[in-house]
């Protein structure tokens, strides 16, 4: 019954989405408020029914109802409850259901909290949202129904892919989807603006918070996924330039550009056409990501789908939405009025440069992702484009961007004074150079690139600090007035500083980890000692243990430093009987931002075991950086909320504050 109800709820959601696709648009043409308001009710009802459908699938998984094919293929009665729940989206059908559930959630949020939107804009936005939803409901119902029954129900399930049986699965995909799908809102707003032929600063003010929410989740989702890969896969890598990773990086790059261009549009009423285009491109890249991951074009753990009809279906959706929206853009964009003049050296100019570098970097990643696919299809030979390619292309572009980051927030709107800003950034620049010199001396030569990159990271952080110091008048003014100004500073100024500093932090982590990572790989017997980066690891012994749905072999290492015993590390290797596959559980020892990383290979006949030990200096900075960025985003968002949808002048108190 539960499966059938879930299926039925999904069909009803499709019907609602179809109504929502058409009726509000008719209402907007006829200027009929009642018809336009239909969108609000249907969006909320859609959320209700998709929510019910998703809950049904969760219940089936929790109850281990193996008469449902999806549960049979991805669950096991002995699996811990957490993984029974997360296993719902650890497979193709379930993850698509999560996708539409989040889409409905965003639609529902616009419907519920969009009361201050002009009625026709809200009708248009929700209608566009419903087009996307209808396409994906159809996709699920036609090609990937999660509620299919098996005629003769088996007694036991086939279990979830062991690599996915981890807390990471509970966090990473929902976060990532909140990001991906969140960009559908800015897409819908862009299409609505094109349909209405009207766009102004207020539009940007409505779009920005939604984009920001999506961006925060995408940032955290990517970082979380990277950390998951790092500790779960057992060789300590955290980014592989895998097409699937690129699929999430591209919307992030475009979304970051969109955040910045929407800022120009909101504050200065310029870059309108470009912002619309970016909104379309960002969501198109999200759709492309869905296609790359879900179609099975690329073979990887992410590619659950091997059924070609699914790939063709998503490709159709992709062409329809990207092609359609770009055609609409081409036809309507010229009718949008341009406004807001600015000199090339200005805050606007800096943000244009930011957009330019981010989109070009995004294009490079797109090229690297699609080029091997294109060559395989056209020229029939296989190749792989990996880290060396991106190191030579993406990194220089991003280095340029980082060099410009501290200048942007300090330039004035309309016409800036580059020399003045350079003078104010002198301290930050000197800090960067001093760090370059220190690191260079400490590393005794070696590659010049690493000290320079670390110096760049320090410059970006110091630049963010300088900006706050300048705004609050720290050093120049008495402390009481500094405090007053700091409190009065718009939250978004703090947000900018945190997000930009996060970039620098991540860069330092990346450079340190890749340059000074030390590794030790060998077979070890009992009482053997490994020396890695000042640590001594003594293999105490091997133990067997029975888990809920696996057996595991644990190796215990006594870790000491300079003869001082520190702790015991216990990496393990789990073998899952149902699938006959195994996973490696690495053991981590954190000290500051650095980590010691131990993972196991195969055991030999003589009772020895292959061991991989890494010392990764400052590796945690790689993920603290994105967390800082997301925190900056949240700060900005809390500022926005005060003004969202209130295109009137800000309250009197704020007039006294320094400009953003």
């Amino acid at each position, binding site marked *: 019954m539960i499966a059938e109800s879930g299926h039925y709820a999904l069909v009803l959601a499709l019907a609602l989405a179809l109504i929502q696709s058409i009726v509000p648009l008719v209402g907007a043409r006829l200027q009929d408020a009642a018809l336009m308001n239909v969108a609000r009710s249907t969006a909320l009802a859609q959320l209700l029914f998709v929510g019910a459908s998703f809950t049904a699938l969760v219940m089936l998984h929790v109850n281990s109802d193996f008469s449902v094919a999806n549960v049979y*293929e991805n669950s096991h009665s002995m699996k811990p409850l957490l993984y029974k729940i997360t296993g719902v989206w650890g497979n193709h059908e379930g993850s698509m259901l999560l996708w539409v559930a989040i889409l409905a959630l965003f639609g529902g949020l616009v419907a519920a909290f969009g009361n201050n939107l002009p009625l026709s804009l809200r009708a248009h936005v929700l209608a566009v949202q419903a087009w996307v939803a209808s396409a994906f409901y159809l996709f699920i119902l036609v090609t990937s129904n999660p509620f299919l029954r098996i005629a003769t129900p088996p007694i036991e399930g086939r279990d979830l*892919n062991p*690599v*996915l049986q981890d807390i990471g699965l509970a966090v*990473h995909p929902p976060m990532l989807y909140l990001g991906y799908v969140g960009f559908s809102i800015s897409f819908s707003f862009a299409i609505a603006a094109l349909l209405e032929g009207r766009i102004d600063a207020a539009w940007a003010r409505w779009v920005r918070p939604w984009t920001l929410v999506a961006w925060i989740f995408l940032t955290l989702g990517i970082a979380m996924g*990277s950390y*998951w*890969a790092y500790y*779960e*896969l057992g*060789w300590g*890598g955290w*980014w*592989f330039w*895998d*097409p*699937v*990773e690129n699929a*999430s990086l591209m919307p992030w790059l475009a979304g970051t550009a969109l955040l910045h261009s929407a800022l120009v549009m909101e504050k200065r009423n310029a870059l309108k056409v470009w912002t619309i285009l970016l909104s379309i491109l960002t969501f198109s890249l999200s759709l492309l990501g869905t296609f790359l991951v879900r179609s099975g074009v690329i*073979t*990887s*753990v*992410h*590619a659950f789908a091997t059924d070609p009809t699914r790939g063709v279906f998503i490709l159709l959706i992709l062409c329809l939405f990207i092609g359609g929206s770009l055609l609409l853009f081409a036809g309507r964009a010229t009718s949008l009025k341009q406004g807001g*003049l*600015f*000199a*090339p050296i200005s805050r606007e*100019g800096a943000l*244009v*440069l930011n957009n*330019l*570098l981010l989109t*070009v*970097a995004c*294009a*490079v990643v797109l090229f690297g992702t699609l080029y091997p696919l294109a060559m395989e299809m056209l020229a029939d*030979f*296989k*190749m*792989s*484009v*990996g880290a*060396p*390619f991106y*190191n*030579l*292309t993406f990194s*220089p*572009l991003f280095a340029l961007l980082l060099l410009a980051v501290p200048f942007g927030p300090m330039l004035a709107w309309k016409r800036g004074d580059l020399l003045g800003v350079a003078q104010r950034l002198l301290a930050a620049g000197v800090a960067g150079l001093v760090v370059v010199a220190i690191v260079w001396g400490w590393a005794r030569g070696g590659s010049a690139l690493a000290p320079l990159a670390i110096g760049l990271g320090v410059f970006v952080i110091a630049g963010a600090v300088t900006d706050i110091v300048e705004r609050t008048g720290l050093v120049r003014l008495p402390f009481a007035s500094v405090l007053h100004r700091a409190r009065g500073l718009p939250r978004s100024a703090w947000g900018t500083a945190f997000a930009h500093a996060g970039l620098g932090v991540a860069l330092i982590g990346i450079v340190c980890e890749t340059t000074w990572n030390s590794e030790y*790989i*060998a*077979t070890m017997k009992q009482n053997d000692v490994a020396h890695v980066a000042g640590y001594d690891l003594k293999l105490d012994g091997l133990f067997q243990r029975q888990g809920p749905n696996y057996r595991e072999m644990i190796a215990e290492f006594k870790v000491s430093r300079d003869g001082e015993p520190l702790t015991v590390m216990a990496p393990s290797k789990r073998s899952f009987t149902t699938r*006959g*596959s*195994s996973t*490696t559980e690495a053991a981590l020892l954190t000290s500051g931002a650095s980590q010691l990383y131990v993972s196991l*290979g*195969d055991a030999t006949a003589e009772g020895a075991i*292959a061991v991989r030990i890494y010392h990764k200096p400052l590796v945690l900075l790689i993920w603290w950086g994105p967390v800082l960025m997301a925190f900056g985003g949240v700060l900005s968002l809390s500022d926005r909320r005060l003004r969202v949808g209130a295109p009137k002048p800000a309250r009197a108190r704020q007039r006294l504050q320094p400009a953003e």
Partner: protein
Amino acid sequence: MTRKQRRMTIIGGSLAVLALAAALVLNALRDSIVFFSTPTMVAEKHVEPGKRFRLGGLVQPGSLQRGDNLAVTFEVADGNAKLPVAYKGILPDLFREGQGVVAEGALDGNGVFKADTVLAKHDETYMPKEVADALKKQGHWKDDYDAKASDTKASGESKPAATTAQGNPQGAMR
């Protein structure tokens, strides 16, 4: 500055960045791309020693030899030709004799493929995609692979498990 000059500045800047990106990409394409070959293709084309490529095929049964300190040698075969491979390190969990494998590295002067990365991406029935395609093209696709593959598909088991050694760019789990 007139409006036109401002616009020209911005367009000029954009073109400069695009040109820079294009130059970087073309430069990177020249020497950072790794091609995929099978032992037959290696024998036919005379790949020069030192040139990096990806070698794919089946691990020849009985050829795996473990030496001291994690050194291993094995042969990769595709029905027509065989190529000896030397590797030092931990082999991926799913590395088995008689099964598909992809290794990345270069030939040395003696015609031995020195691999620095070994990827085995399959479960008991699954082939790495490149290997399966190459074998099919050469007509060495044994029917029982297909039979097994369709068998597993029918029962819904079609997910490849990915295990790799050392920084496999495609096995990343996110």
